[in-house]
C-alpha cells in the first residue's frame, strides 16, 4: 500500500495540472490581500457603517485574523472545484490515458490500488488546504498584524480576544479538511464510473452546485433532506467563531456556542466519505477494463 501511495503522489505532483490549484489560490489570496492592504480602511468603514452609531471599536479591526476569515468565506466555496480537478481524474484519467490496464495488471488488488489512489488524492487535498491556510492565515498575520477578531454576523456581532483566535482557525481548517475530503471522495466516485477525464470533473462540480442550491433553498419540500446533504454541513467551519456569552452578554473565553452542530457535521461528512469511497471500490472491482 505504501508503494502505491508514493507512486500515486509522485504521479500527481509530476503533472502540471496539479499546480493550477496552488497557483489559483495564491493568485486569488494575493489579489485580495493587496486590495485590502491598499484600501482596507474604506472596506472596514463600509462594513461598520451600520453599527458605528451604537458601537465604538478600538484597535485594529482589519487585522490578519479578520482578513483570513474574509478569505475563507470567499475561497472555501471555490476550493472544492480545484480539488475536483485532481480527485475526479484519479481513475478516469488513467482509463482515458490507457494506463489503467498497466496498473491493474500489477500484483496489487483493485481494492488496494483504489484505496492507494484515494489516500494520495486526500494527501493532495490536505496539502492544498495547508497551502491555503499558510497564505490566508499566516501571510495575512504577517502583512496585517494581529488583534482581537471582530465579526459582523447577520443580527449580532462577535468579539473574540486575540489570544482566543488561533486555535479556532486550527479547528476550522481541520473541519474544512473533512469538507474537502468529502468533495475528494465524491470526485473519486465520479472518476470510478467514467472512462474520460472531463465527465467526472464536470459531474463533481455540477453535483456540488446542485446540492448547494438544495441546501440553501428554504423550500419546505427539501427541508427533510437538507440535514443529510453534505453541502449543508460544508460551511460549518464558521461555528468555531461563534462564542458562548454569559448573562452580561460577555464572551466566554475558549468556548464554542454550538459544539454539537460541529460534531454532527463531522459525522455526516465522514459518513459521506465512507459511502463514496466504498461505492468507488465496489464499482472499480466489478468493472471490466476495456479502455
Amino acid at each position: 500500500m505504501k508503494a502505491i501511495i508514493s507512486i500515486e503522489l509522485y504521479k500527481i505532483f509530476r503533472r502540471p495540472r496539479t499546480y493550477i490549484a496552488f497557483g489559483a489560490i495564491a493568485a486569488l489570496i494575493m489579489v485580495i490581500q493587496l486590495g485590502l492592504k491598499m484600501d482596507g480602511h474604506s472596506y472596514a468603514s463600509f462594513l461598520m457603517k451600520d453599527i458605528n452609531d451604537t458601537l465604538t471599536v478600538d484597535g485594529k479591526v482589519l487585522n490578519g485574523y479578520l482578513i483570513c476569515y474574509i478569505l475563507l468565506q470567499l475561497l472555501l466555496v471555490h476550493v472544492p472545484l480545484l480539488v475536483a480537478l485532481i480527485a475526479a481524474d484519479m481513475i478516469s484519467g488513467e482509463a482515458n490515458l490507457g494506463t489503467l490496464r498497466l496498473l491493474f495488471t500489477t500484483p496489487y488488488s483493485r481494492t488496494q490500488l483504489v484505496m492507494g489512489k484515494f489516500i494520495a488524492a486526500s494527501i493532495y487535498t490536505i496539502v492544498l488546504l495547508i497551502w491555503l491556510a499558510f497564505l490566508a492565515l499566516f501571510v495575512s498575520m504577517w502583512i496585517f498584524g494581529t488583534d482581537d477578531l471582530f465579526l459582523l454576523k447577520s443580527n449580532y456581532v462577535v468579539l473574540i480576544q486575540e489570544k482566543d483566535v488561533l486555535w479556532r482557525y486550527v479547528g476550522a481548517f481541520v473541519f474544512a479538511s473533512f469538507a474537502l475530503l468529502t468533495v475528494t471522495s465524491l470526485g473519486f466516485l465520479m472518476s470510478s464510473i467514467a472512462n474520460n477525464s472531463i465527465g467526472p470533473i464536470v459531474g463533481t462540480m455540477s453535483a456540488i452546485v446542485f446540492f448547494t442550491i438544495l441546501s440553501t433553498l428554504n423550500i419546505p419540500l427539501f427541508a427533510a433532506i437538507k440535514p443529510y446533504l453534505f453541502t449543508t454541513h460544508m460551511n460549518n467551519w464558521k461555528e468555531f467563531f461563534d462564542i458562548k456569552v454569559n448573562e452580561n452578554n460577555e464572551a466566554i473565553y475558549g468556548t464554542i456556542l454550538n459544539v454539537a452542530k460541529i460534531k454532527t457535521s463531522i459525522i455526516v461528512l465522514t459518513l459521506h466519505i465512507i459511502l463514496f469511497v466504498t461505492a468507488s471500490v465496489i464499482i472499480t472491482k466489478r468493472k471490466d477494463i476495456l479502455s
Partner: protein
Amino acid sequence: MSVIQVNGLSKHFGALKAVDQLDFSVTEGEVFGFLGQNGSGKSTTIRMLLSLIHPTSGSIELFGKPLNKYRDEILEEVGAIIERPDLYPYLTAKEHLQLFAKLRNKHVGENSIQDTLVKVGLADRSKDKVQTFSLGMKQRLGIAIALLHNPSLIILDEPTNGLDPQGISDIRNLIKQLAQQEGKTVLVSSHLLSEIEQMATQIMIIHKGKKVADGPIQKLLDPNKMIVHIKTTNDAQTLQIILSGSFSNYLLQRTDGIYLRLPDYEIPLLNASLVNAGVGLIGVETRNSLEDYFLQVTSNTIA
C-alpha cells in the same frame, strides 16, 4: 507443464458473445501465437487472462492455480503489454521503469532497469519524456515494462505495432531469445502472420469468439496440403479434367482462378494429365504460408 490452462471460457457483452467456450493450454517455454481477425475476441481473451475483464463463464488457471483465487500471486509472474503502448506522457522512460519496479514485490534494482532499457534499445533515450517518443519507442518501453521484473509468462498483444522493419526484427529475436535461452513462456498475438510464423511453436486461431484451429505450426502448415494455383491455356478444359478424375476432391471453390489443396506428390500427376489432354500449363503457384492457412480457416473465400 501447462502455464496457461483455459476451459470453457466465455465473455458476453449483452447479446454479443465476444468469446465463446474457449479451451486451450500453453506449455512452459513455448511461444504461443494467438491469431484472429479484428474483433475476433483476442484482446478480450488476453484481458481475461490478465484479470482485466471478468469472464461470464469458464475457468482460467495460470501456473496451475485458478486466476480468480490467486490473482495477485499469479500476476507477480506475468509481464504484459495490451494493445496500444499507453504511458504517462509527463514521465521519462527510466521513471516509468522505476515506477513499475516499485509495484512489484520482487526487488528490481537500478542495474535491472538499465539492462532492460538496453535490451529494448532505449538506453540512450532513458531520460527523455515519453511525450517526445514515437509509437515504436513507446512500444519498446511497453515491452520493457513487461520484462522488467523477469516474469515467467509474457503476454504480448500486438507487440510489433508501430515498429519499423528493424524494430520488428529486434522484437522477434527478443521473443525467440526469451523462450529459447531463458525458458520463458510467451503468448503473442499479432496481425503480422509472417512474424508469428517465424517465432511461434504453437498457434491458435479464433474467429467470432470461437477456436477454429490450434496446434503446432509445423503440423498445421502440412507440406502435404499445399494450396496450388494453376494457370493454363484453357481453364474450362482444365476444370473438366479435374472434375472428371481423382483431382476433384482437391478442388477449392474459388472464382478467381483454379485452386486445389493437394499433396505435393500429386502436382506432377496433375501436370501430366493436363499435358496429355493438350492443355498448356502456364504456371503453378504453390502456397503454404500461415496467412493462407489463416484465411482458409477464418473466411469463406477458401472453403
